[in-house]
């Protein structure tokens, strides 16, 4: 079994290195094919491992070699395939296989085709390291690795100013969170003496509560960055500058869920500190509704999906924070399927529309792009949580958790968010695919994507439909690893009211969205309508002015302060002091060089001056010695 672990882990690395060999060359089709094959190999190996674990096999644990060992620290490259990591491996490898194959078509005309696959496979490798590591340090390797690949892929079209800016923003924002994560690691190390999960988890119950709370908080700060939780969320929407397959893989299905994975993985820690858990859940619920509200009015197709990702991540954190780790993991998995599908569908639309992102400029695309329409509609239904698609099972479970745990505020917020989700998802679908065509005005001739791209998306489509059926299997799989419990609402009546009520609410939202946006006569908004003038619209459209606030109060002052530090402090104070000292010495020299006129008579005069001064000193010292007793008395009188 170990060999499958190695294959699953290293096939993406091989793929990345292989593709990297051709980065400087023109597009080579075989690079994409081989990369896809290698990622598929990783997927196949992960499947073998999943079957192994499903059949009750022991978790597989390997240690490759020591990474860092000094003092009391010993960090190996250790990898583990257990119930939790195998689920993540499946999600990662499946979505990345799909995305790799899809990218062969999507990046078809890009001159940096080969480089794209190098980065994409490197990302898969980092993600595998992240989920398979058996210690926090290894997790951190993957953590930073995915950050790097995300930087490279967001800024993939590096000639675009906005893309490189977004790449840097994402990297730096993640770095802020990574500092929190690092501090969390330090706390774990100095309190338990190890960074291995097993040993650390075993030691956690023996630590005092305050320490555990700090560990929990700092690790969660790390998770907040990667999973783009408030207030570190702005990078995710900007990250949509990257190619769409990247958005599907990294900024929807896998990397952004790494934070959720971290919380799930550290569940023995968060079990001990339910107050931090409650904070996580509250923040999650807040982000869910906060992000959903921004998606309501946005006019950028990819950003709308990005906000929806953010919102769904909030759901996951809400579940994880309330201790329902298995529910969070299940939603993570289901979300990966339908969100990746949604993004890839959006990619098809973008291709068809020549990179136009404003859904108001589309409309009636369902005739031209039948399959994309079907896929995106089903994915949106799944996202909205309509029975019997994947999202229904996972999202409903989260709502139940909130209800059963008696956190009614969280429950209500999440419920409202579900309605908002349904609304903005179908606002998008209606604007893109229904109504009358508005694109002809812009001279665009849309066409359906390549067949094989649609085929590549089909596994996701199927999973988005049927993943809910595996809920029970999934529960059994992670039951032991995550101390999973079923959240039963005791009264059947309540349960049915809840389910039917939620469904009705969601369907009503969908219906409303259709009614509002699928009608004829939708105009491309030009900022003059009454809605657009309203305060609320502006607030939402400008993302609550948070990016503006960050730019105005963090970025600009930082730049100005840097400039002041350089031009004023470093050059005018610190360096000027040093030069000032040198100048004093130098000018003393210039001033006194007059003595050295070379004139014998001047020198003799100076000699006499020196003689007199020395004599006076000698006399003074002699007198002082002679009258030392009296002097000290005198000085004592002065209080010296």
């Amino acid at each position: 079994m170990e060999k499958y672990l190695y294959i699953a882990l290293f096939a993406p690395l091989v793929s990345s290195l292989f593709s990297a060999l051709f980065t400087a060359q023109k597009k080579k089709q075989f690079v994409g094919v081989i990369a896809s094959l290698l990622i598929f190999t990783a997927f196949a190996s992960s499947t073998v491992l999943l079957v192994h674990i499903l059949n009750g096999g022991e978790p597989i644990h390997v240690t490759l070699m020591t990474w860092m060992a000094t003092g009391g620290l010993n960090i190996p490259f250790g990898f583990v395939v257990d119930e939790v990591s195998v689920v993540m491996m499946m999600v990662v490898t499946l979505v990345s296989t799909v995305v790799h194959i899809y990218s062969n078509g999507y990046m078809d005309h890009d001159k940096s085709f080969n480089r794209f696959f190098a980065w994409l496979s490197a990302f898969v490798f980092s993600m595998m390291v992240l989920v398979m590591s058996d210690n926090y340090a290894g997790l951190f390797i993957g953590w930073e690795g995915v950050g790097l690949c995300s930087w490279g892929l967001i800024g993939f079209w590096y000639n675009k100013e906005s893309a490189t800016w977004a790449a840097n923003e994402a990297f730096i924002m993640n770095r802020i969170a990574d500092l929190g994560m690092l501090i969390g690691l330090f706390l774990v190390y100095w309190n338990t003496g190890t960074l291995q999960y097993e040993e650390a988890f075993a030691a956690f119950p023996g630590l005092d509560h305050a320490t555990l709370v700090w560990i929990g908080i700092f690790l969660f700060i790390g998770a907040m960055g990667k999973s783009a939780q408030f207030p570190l969320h702005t990078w995710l929407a900007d990250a949509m500058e990257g190619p769409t397959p990247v958005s599907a893989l990294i900024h929807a299905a896998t990397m952004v869920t790494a934070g959720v994975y971290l919380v799930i993985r550290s569940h023995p820690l968060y079990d001990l500190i339910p107050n931090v858990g409650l904070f996580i859940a509250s923040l999650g619920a807040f982000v869910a509704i906060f992000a959903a509200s921004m998606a309501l009015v946005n006019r950028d197709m990819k950003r709308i999906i990005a906000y929806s990702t953010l919102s769904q991540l909030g759901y996951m954190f809400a579940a994880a924070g309330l201790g329902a780790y298995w529910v969070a993991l299940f939603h993570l998995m289901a979300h990966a399927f339908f969100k990746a599908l949604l993004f890839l569908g959006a990619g098809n639309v973008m291709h068809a529309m020549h990179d136009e992102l404003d859904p108001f400029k589309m409309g009636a695309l369902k005739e031209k792009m039948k399959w994309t329409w079907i896929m995106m509609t089903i994915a949106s239904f799944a996202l909205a949580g309509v029975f019997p698609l994947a999202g229904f099972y996972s999202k409903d479970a989260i709502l139940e958790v909130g209800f059963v745990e008696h956190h009614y505020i969280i429950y209500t917020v999440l419920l409202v968010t579900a309605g908002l989700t349904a609304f903005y998802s179908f606002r998008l679908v209606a604007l893109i695919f229904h109504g009358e065509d508005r694109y002809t005005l812009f001279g665009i001739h849309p066409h359906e994507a390549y067949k094989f791209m649609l085929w590549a998306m089909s596994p996701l489509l199927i999973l988005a439909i049927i993943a809910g059926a595996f809920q029970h299997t999934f529960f059994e799989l992670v039951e032991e690893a995550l101390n999973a419990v079923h959240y039963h609402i005791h009264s059947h009546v309540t349960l049915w009211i809840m389910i039917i009520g939620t469904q009705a609410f969601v369907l009503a939202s969908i219906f409303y969205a259709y009614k509002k946006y699928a009608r004829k006569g939708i105009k491309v908004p030009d900022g003059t309508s009454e809605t657009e003038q309203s305060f609320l619209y502006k607030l939402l459209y400008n993302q609550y002015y948070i990016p503006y606030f960050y730019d105005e109060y963090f970025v600009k002052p930082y730049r100005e302060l840097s400039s002041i530090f350089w031009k004023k402090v470093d050059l005018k104070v610190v360096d000027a002091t040093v030069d000032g000292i040198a100048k004093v010495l130098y000018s003393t020299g210039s001033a006194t060089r007059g003595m050295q006129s070379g004139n014998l008579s001047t020198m003799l005069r100076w000699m006499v001056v020196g003689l007199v001064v020395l004599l006076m000193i000698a006399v003074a010292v002699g007198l002082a010695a002679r009258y030392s007793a009296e002097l000290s008395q005198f000085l004592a009188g002065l209080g010296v």
Partner: protein
Amino acid sequence: MEIGLNHYLVLATILFGIGLYGVMRRKNLLMLFFATEILLNSVNIGFAAISHYYADLTGQMFAFFVIAIAASEVAVGLGLLIVWYKRHNSIDLDEMSVMRG
């Protein structure tokens, strides 16, 4: 009035002052030598007087040494002076400023 040690020392001091003034003010190298001689001899007077006062011959011995050294100094110095005069036709101190700082 008995002439005592103090008188000698006052004489030595006055001579020293004259010599010092000469050293500082004279621009002629030859005059400088004279002034130096006055300086040295004022010290010699001091040595001799104190030596007599303490009845210790060390001071007088020192005076002899000083005389010897002064003599040799003048010999060498005058030699250099003559050479300089032959080259530059002047022994003005202000013109000897090759070693300017």
